């Protein structure tokens, strides 16, 4: 019994180590892709590592109270929770994480959880831009959850399951079994809401440096910021893995996970590099418009 727990703990640590490093390298690579679009050389791929080290070795750090400490902790817990309940590589013991039946609902909750925790921490910092950023973030999140939830309802009705592992299992056996081909409407609704979830342009209304510098983490510095940056890498990785599992057939090896998640992320970066930022109200109206209608259509198709 103890041996099993120790082995599982070891596997979890390996899985977390891999996703953290992968998330950081992915962030660095995409910064370079964005730079190439703008005709620049761009920062080194390993720049996110240096930034995190720098923030953690700063000599001073200002706290604004207990919730200020707990904000980044909740955020990190949200990121870790999201990742740990998604099987990263199908059929792998190390990357199976803690997936169980019905975990899709828990994962959707965890995506929200970090933002709510951050709202408490940012609120205590007392900076006026923090609550504005948080309010924008929660409003946008409620908006993009609508098409995403509709899409999940459609595929859950189609495959009669709420387990991410089962979704991956049911999509095995050829590219045409992927949900992107068996249920394109649900995939389109979800991929549009993924743009909002990854908070790049045109949905970068939360951390909008020119409007509300820089939103919720305005007062976060030193190791608080270092923690948030680490979480961003994990959370990004987790979201990419989730969408890969749900719509693109999952992955049976680390290599196919890397290729698929890279391409999904590249899609958000290309959209981000091509469009300017929406205003907060435009973003919310957008998600509640056509993406929601596509989501409803996906559900209706399953009902017929």
């Amino acid at each position, binding site marked *: 019994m103890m041996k099993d727990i120790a082995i599982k703990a070891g596997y979890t640590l390996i899985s977390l180590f891999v996703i953290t490093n992968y998330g950081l390298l992915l962030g660095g690579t995409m910064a370079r892709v964005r730079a190439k679009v703008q005709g620049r*050389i761009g920062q*080194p791929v390993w720049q996110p590592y240096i930034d995190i080290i720098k923030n953690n070795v700063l000599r*001073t750090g200002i706290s604004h109270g207990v919730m200020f400490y707990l904000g980044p902790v909740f955020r990190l817990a949200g990121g870790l929770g999201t990742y740990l309940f998604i099987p990263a590589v199908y059929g792998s013991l190390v990357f199976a994480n803690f997936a169980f039946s019905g975990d899709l609902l828990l994962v959707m909750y965890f995506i929200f959880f970090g933002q709510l925790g951050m709202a408490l921490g940012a609120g205590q910092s007392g900076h006026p831009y923090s609550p504005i950023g948080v309010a924008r973030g929660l409003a946008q999140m409620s908006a993009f959850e609508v098409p995403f939830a509709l899409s999940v309802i459609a595929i859950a009705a189609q495959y009669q399951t709420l387990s991410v592992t089962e979704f991956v299992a049911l999509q095995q056996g050829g590219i045409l079994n992927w949900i992107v081909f068996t249920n394109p409407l649900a995939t389109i609704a979800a991929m549009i809401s993924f743009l909002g979830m990854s908070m790049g342009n045109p949905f970068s209304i939360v951390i909008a440096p020119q409007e509300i510098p820089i939103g919720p983490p*305005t007062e976060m510095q030193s190791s608080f910021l270092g923690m948030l940056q680490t979480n961003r890498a994990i959370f990004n990785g987790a979201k990419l893995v989730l969408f890969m599992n749900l719509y693109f057939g999952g992955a049976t090896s680390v290599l196919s996970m890397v290729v698929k998640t890279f391409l999904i992320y590249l899609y958000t970066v290309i959209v981000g590099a091509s469009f300017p930022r929406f205003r907060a109200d435009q973003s919310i109206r957008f998600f509640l418009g056509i993406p929601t209608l596509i989501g409803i259509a996906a559900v209706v198709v399953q009902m017929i």
Partner: protein
Amino acid sequence: MKKDEMNEQIAQIDKAMRLGNEGLSDDQKAYFCDQRPERIDPYHGILERFANWARAESLWILGFGTGCGAIELRPLMTSRYDMYRYGIQPRPTPRQAGVFVIGGYASVKTMKRIVRSYEQMQGPKFVLGLGSCTINGGMYWDSYNTINRLDHYIPVDIYIAGCMPRPEALLAGFNRLKEMIKAGQCDGMNSYAENFDWYKKNQKQIIKHWNMPDYNW
């Protein structure tokens, strides 16, 4: 000496070390800290060298254009100069920034904001004086509302002379700053803490309407 007397003496010394915050009303005083900045010793040996390397390779500029020289900062982000490849990037809040570029002349009105922003930055923090105005006032040396020597008010690590220095000069300045940080020569944060009274006296001499705390945490 009795224990009570000793405690009283400690309380008096503590009170004397506290900042007066005289620019604030009694209501406002409750919101601000009255503690002085303290010297924080660097790590030793390889740990400090590693930390300095990380600090040098990740310079986050405070996006606060204090004077006309700030116009030379913008081209650095463009594809022609691309400061990102040196690990330099702008940051919109002083809490997260590590480098403060004083863009040219600093008027008395701006000086107040410069002091506030500088004190809110987390150490180790570096200041780069851009243009001749920060060195000796430049073409504004006899102006009634600009300061002449920036390092009388905040510690400056490196100056870039010129009016205006071109973006190339700015990049060269950044790279020199990186070398200095790696060599452990930039300790403006501790120098500010050690000479806090002198800096405050100079600041208060020019900023007449002092309606902020003596040290902005």
